[in-house]
């Protein structure tokens, strides 16, 4: 799965995106976050559990308990401030 980052999350992680092999027990968006926190110290530091952010699977906004299904991309970003 490709994980994409935007705005201050992208800046603080110092990466736009990353390719990630997911273990079988990673089934939801929340699972991906927990997995990343476990394997990546930078991620755990920048996005601790209390962080307010939003997520999208293949261009659709989703809740954290949404199953990944066949999505190819997970985007992680702060609340939007467009318009």
């Amino acid at each position, binding site marked *: 799965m490709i994980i994409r980052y935007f*705005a201050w999350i*992208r800046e603080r992680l110092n990466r736009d995106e990353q390719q990630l092999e997911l273990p079988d027990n990673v089934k939801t968006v929340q699972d991906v976050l927990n997995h990343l926190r476990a394997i990546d110290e930078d991620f755990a530091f920048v996005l601790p559990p209390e962080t307010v952010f939003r997520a999208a699977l293949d261009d659709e*906004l989703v809740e954290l308990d949404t199953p990944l299904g066949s999505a190819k991309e997970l*985007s992680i970003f702060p609340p*939007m401030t*467009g*318009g």
Partner: protein
Amino acid sequence: MMGISVTIQAEIFDAGDLVNQFTRDMPEAGAVATFTGLVRSKPEQPIKALILEHHPTMAQKQIERFAQEAVDKFDLLAIQVVHRFGEMKVGEPIVQVMAASSHRQAAFDGANYVMDWLKTDAPFWKKEVGADGAHWVEARDKDEAAKNKWTK
């Protein structure tokens, strides 16, 4: 033009030209409501520029969806959205939404509906460049509340 048009671009646009192009050849449209969002600088906290980051594919899809919802909900004849990304100066337009209808209130509601959703659910992030460096703009609870008026 008729129907739905959504454009996301880095280039500056001419707000007035867009209005004139949009209203051309719509003999049944008695009412056009336009919203233009501009880069703003407050005297107490002046900015030099605004940088808008976005998620291109998702932004296009989301805005097309809000536009279609507005057409269905308010029986619009046409709606057009232009949203910029990248760096812009104070006074430049950021976004323009135009809604055409036979009737006045539908046109106002259509443009307002798209703007309310766009503010909270379209993937754009503002970074203000001021004298003391650049900082990301925080989301406002007010915007979230504004969006909810349509589902009451």
